[in-house]
């Protein structure tokens, strides 16, 4: 049986550290391109999905 955490924010990727705060792991990227790359890698590693909050913050959520 597969056990995992679902429907929670597993990681946050941002280009603007000012906009995030809290207990999830935060990955700070220098630009949008790097943020997308980190997002792709994290989504594959965590088998999860990247969502865009449209303010330079991306969250990785497993559904």
């Amino acid at each position, binding site marked *: 049986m597969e056990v995992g955490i679902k429907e929670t924010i597993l990681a946050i990727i941002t280009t603007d550290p000012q906009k995030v705060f809290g207990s999830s792991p935060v990955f700070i990227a220098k630009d949008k391109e790097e943020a997308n790359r980190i*997002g792709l890698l994290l989504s*594959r590693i965590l*088998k*999860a*999905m*990247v*969502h*865009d909050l449209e303010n330079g913050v991306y969250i990785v959520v497993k*559904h």
Partner: protein
Amino acid sequence: MKDMASIVILGVIMGVAARIFMLRNDYRSYPSYPHGYVTHISLGFIAAFLASLAIPALMEKEYTAVTFLVLAAQQFRDIRNMERETLSKLEELSLVPRGLDYIEGIAKVFEARNYLVMLVSLTTTGFAVFFNLQIGAIAGIISIFLTGFLMRGQFVRDIAEVKPGKLHFEKSLLMVDDIVIMNIGSPEAKEKILQDGVGVVIHPKDDNARATLNNLGQRQAILHDVAALVGSKLETGEPDFTPLMRKNVDTGKLALFVVPNEKDIECIIEAIYRTPVLESATQKPLSSDIGRKAAD
């Protein structure tokens, strides 16, 4: 006595023929294995045999023999459990699952088919006893086709109209026409979806259809059938291509999004049309006074 034996044999043959007739292998592909066939034909044989004995036993004044039918009913309830368990287990490793409602529907059908086999055998032996073997055989064949016709059930085609929709992005939101499907962050996934994805809109024909399609089990059944027929590029660990259905809360129309292996919108629409309407999902608010009054 010899006459009774041939009547019973005729009943069994008709019953088994009915079971084979109902065991069409279609795109839902269940059962698609030789062992599945053997199981169901064997159980069909038992059902046919039990039912064929009932009327001849009554003629011989062996009234207790009819209690056999009770035993049969018990046996066939187990079939439903068996089907449900098998399909639920397979579900865990399925990328686009059938959903519990669909499984329940399939399990119910498998149980009911054995009762239909008994009905065919009873009809055949009944007519054979009171008239003759030829009339029994004809009655059996007619009842086989009659059961096939009566058990056909509804399809999405009967309750809704499906039209192509425009798949587009509003910033990070994936939309089909005006219905939001989901938020997608990855630019690669967005590009791929715009290139290969398909969006269609399902318009329910009336309030009954709207309530039925509102059922999540029914929606999952549609998604499963679409993915089974045209394929889906969904891969484990890459949820961006998950086929989804979302509703416009104001109008009740549903948007379906899928990234198919074969981008053929006609086939996708046909796949949706051919999805059966699940018994457990069917709702008929228009059959009640309140529903009718609220609808106008």
